[in-house]
């Protein structure tokens, strides 16, 4: 207390203190100046130089585009030289300046340290009041501080984790989110509602069985008989129509465009079309797309609130029923020998994609996306090569299951988490027909080889769930899926041979050549088989154990797609048009 002024006086008298203070001021000022200059130079290098070169570039451009102008050339040369000199000088300055700065800074710090040594005060311990209180206080404060820091870190982490627009966790991930409020719309329709519509490929359970009444049996496309409407489809595709309420959906694509179309079920007018961007992946250009497959072979799927479509390049797009795009995600261009063709299916709020492809092991997956957001809910690896059959959601053994075929298995999955429920090894080759279900049994086809029946509830010989019941051979299709009634199974191969088998043991009931080519899968309506040939002829047969033709109806256009049904109506997609067939009164 008492010696402060004396100390100050003494210090001021000390020439070494004066010297240290002086050198501190001088070096500090120099360091400051050098630092300022360096900052200015850095600013120039970062901001002014690029602008200067851009100016020069503009000058050069005008020179190059005009006739040989000597004056302009000279100006460019001079500007160029000047600019390079300036740049060189700046670099030089930065090199030297940084050394200078470090030097002056060291000098500054050194003299401050020196100066400080004169002002060193003796430690001045003071009697402490109560050590234990202070120590307890310290412990309490530490505890509080650590807890606060932890809360801060945790809170920060949570903020980062839960903030909207959160980057993808895995799989398909990053999507485009809808701006509208998804909350006030229903996310999915009930199973009962699904059954009153035709929401996915070959109907609710994907079996091609139509539960509706008053389905026309007579029509003729060329003469417009019983054709309610006919609308041109802007883009081609071999996918089948799906129907929800008063809307019919299908998709089309070309090399440059991929769209989903929504038609009015009553008059066929195009209500909306939605774009799904084409993948920019260079692999897309090199995709092997057969003409028989095309860019849009996969049928779309709807769950009553959303409709989604997938294209040959693995781009998935989802729209609400009014045509507002909800999200797009890309699964990568599938490696598929004939092009990707599996249709989509839905289970409640999830979109099921069978992505079987020919990369290395692990490339084939069954994927469930949240249909509202496109986020991956689960994905299950499938140890199978590329296949062209579609997944189906069915009710089996009292629960919903997803079925998917791929060489060499038919596998049942749990729609909740993608866990495998059962699998039966029974297939081979390029699997394209889709499995169907009747009476708790699953029927699948190995192309050209055999038709198999599986009881997923029974154990196999090894004790694993799923038993192969029988395998039937002869006139086995390669593309179209089987049709099954309560007693019989029918298969139809591309060459037109219809095989009929007993559902119990697979024994052949009859085989008949229909004298036409078939690619689309047929349907079963009220004890009548509807089989559409590629040339556009629909052959109607009695679904009995004896071959009996009911009718033959011409559409007047080639058909590669399966039919969709609604009460009293058939929706048929020809190569160019969508038809609505209804018996006119």
């Amino acid at each position, binding site marked *: *207390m008492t010696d*402060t002024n004396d100390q100050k006086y003494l210090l001021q008298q000390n020439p070494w203190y004066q010297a240290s203070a002086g050198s501190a001021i001088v070096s500090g000022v120099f360091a400051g100046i050098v630092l300022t200059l360096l900052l200015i130079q850095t600013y120039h290098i*970062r901001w002014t*130089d*690029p*602008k*200067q*070169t*851009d100016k*020069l*570039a503009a000058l*050069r451009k005008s020179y190059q585009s005009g006739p040989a102008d000597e004056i302009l050339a000279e100006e460019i040369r001079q500007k160029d030289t000047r600019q390079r000199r300036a740049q060189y000088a700046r670099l030089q300055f930065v090199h030297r300046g940084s050394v200078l700065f470090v030097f002056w800074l060291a000098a500054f710090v050194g003299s401050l340290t020196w100066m400080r040594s004169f002002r060193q005060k003796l430690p*001045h311990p*003071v009697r402490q009041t109560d050590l234990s209180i202070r120590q307890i206080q310290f412990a309490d404060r530490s505890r509080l501080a650590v807890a606060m820091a932890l809360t801060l870190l945790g809170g920060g982490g949570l903020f980062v984790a839960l903030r909207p627009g959160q980057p993808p966790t895995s799989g398909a991930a990053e999507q485009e989110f809808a701006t509208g409020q998804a909350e006030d719309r229903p996310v999915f329709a009930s199973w009962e509602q699904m059954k009153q519509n035709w929401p996915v490929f070959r109907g609710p359970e994907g079996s091609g069985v139509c539960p509706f009444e008053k389905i026309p049996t007579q029509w003729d496309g060329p003469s417009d008989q019983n054709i309610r409407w006919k609308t041109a489809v802007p883009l081609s595709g071999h996918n089948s129509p799906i129907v929800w309420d008063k809307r019919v959906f299908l998709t089309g694509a070309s090399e440059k465009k991929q769209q989903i179309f929504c038609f009015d079920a009553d008059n066929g007018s195009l209500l909306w079309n939605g774009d799904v961007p084409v993948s920019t992946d260079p692999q897309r*250009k090199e995709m092997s797309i057969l003409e028989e497959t095309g860019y849009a072979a996969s049928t779309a799927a709807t769950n009553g609130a959303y409709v989604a479509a997938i294209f040959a390049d693995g781009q998935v797009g989802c729209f609400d029923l009014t045509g507002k795009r909800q999200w797009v995600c890309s699964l990568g261009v599938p490696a598929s020998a004939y092009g990707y063709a599996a249709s989509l299916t839905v289970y409640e709020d999830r979109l099921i994609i069978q992505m079987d492809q020919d990369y290395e092991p692990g490339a084939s997956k069954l994927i469930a996306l949240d249909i509202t957001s496109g986020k991956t809910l689960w994905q299950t690896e499938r140890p199978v090569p590329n296949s062209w059959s579609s997944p189906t959601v069915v009710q089996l053994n009292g629960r919903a299951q997803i079925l998917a075929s791929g060489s060499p298995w038919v596998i049942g999955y749990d729609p909740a988490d993608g866990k495998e429920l059962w699998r039966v090894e029974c297939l081979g080759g390029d699997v394209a027909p889709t499995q169907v279900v009747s009476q708790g049994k699953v029927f699948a086809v190995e192309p050209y080889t055999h038709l198999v029946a599986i009881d997923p509830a029974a154990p196999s010989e090894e004790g694993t769930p799923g038993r192969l019941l029988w395998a039937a051979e002869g006139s086995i299709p390669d593309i179209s899926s089987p049709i099954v009634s309560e007693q019989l199974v029918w298969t139809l191969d591309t060459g037109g041979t219809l095989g009929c088998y007993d559902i119990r043991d697979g024994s052949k009931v009859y085989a008949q050549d229909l004298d036409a080519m078939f690619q689309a899968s047929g349907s079963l309506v009220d004890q009548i088989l509807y089989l559409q040939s590629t040339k556009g002829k629909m052959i109607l047969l009695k679904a009995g154990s004896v071959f009996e033709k009911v009718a033959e109806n011409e559409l007047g256009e080639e058909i590669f797609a399966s039919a969709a049904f609604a009460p009293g109506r058939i929706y048929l997609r020809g190569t160019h048009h969508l038809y609505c067939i209804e018996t006119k009164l």
Partner: protein
Amino acid sequence: MKDRFGKINNGSAAVLLAIGAFAAGFTGYVLLDRANHSGKRAGADYRYPIEELAKIDPAKILYRQVGTAIETGMESAAAIEADWAGNFYVAGDRAVAVFSGDGSKRRDIPLVSEPTAIGVGEDGLIYAGLSDRIEVYSSDGQQVSAWAPIHTALLTAIAAGKTDVFAADALHKIVRRFDKQGNPLGLIGAKDPDRNIEGIVVPSPYFDLLIAPDGLLRVVNPGRHRIEAYTFDGYLEWHWGRPSVGLEGFSGCCNPIALAALPKGGYVTCEKGLVRVKVYDEEGNLVGVVAGPDQLGWQEPLRVCEKPEDCISRGLDAAVDGQGRIYVLDQSKNVVRIFEKK
């Protein structure tokens, strides 16, 4: 003098302040660093305006592609030739593949080594250049003759006339003249100040020639960016063409790389680098563009390759049939594109 506790308490306020300042500074730094990370670029003058150069006025494009690109099925296709009837012949992979005009393969003529050139005579004979020698095949694939190898040569083009066969040798930058039996008759295009021939410059292995309807040879001189007309005896008559990255000239260091004659007069030229196929009239005036970078699926000049050989950019070759359809062979993608007048 400050009291001890007072000092500590003041200190903690200062410390908090300092830490706050530091945290702010650090956050600012990280933000700046992140912005800098993506944004810091040199000025426009430091970038090559390759994308601007690749743009072509659509009005200048006079041709359109017929169908999709035809896969040759080869690993490395070297040359293409077409006959009057619209068949085309692709040399590559130790074979000559003969295609009909719709793109279906008619036959493969197997060769003993990789072909580098192909020529088809009016008599239908197929001349396959195998680096340093020529083998002759009939149109049904039977070998007619195999000529004696030339000691070191890289034949990149063959033109068969009624009595003479000419081959472009890229290694020696010279045109070799043969009779129909394969006997050498002479060399054309060597540097010769007496005959006012500056010589042919071939910096990259693309060197093409043809026999024009007027009976003169047309030889590409890529290093000088021009097409030169020689008599069969090796006299340089005239030349046309000039270097320019603009549409009317030949771009880059060494272009054009390939040449074909249209049946109604005029020439088709191919350029590598900035890939362009263009049509010129007899005098060397630009008529129009057959296909530009966009139409030919051109990618960035620099690619990311795992193996160096994947990075080698390869060129084009062109041929024309009797209807004036232009067949463009893309050596890097091993496909043939057919172009027709719009």
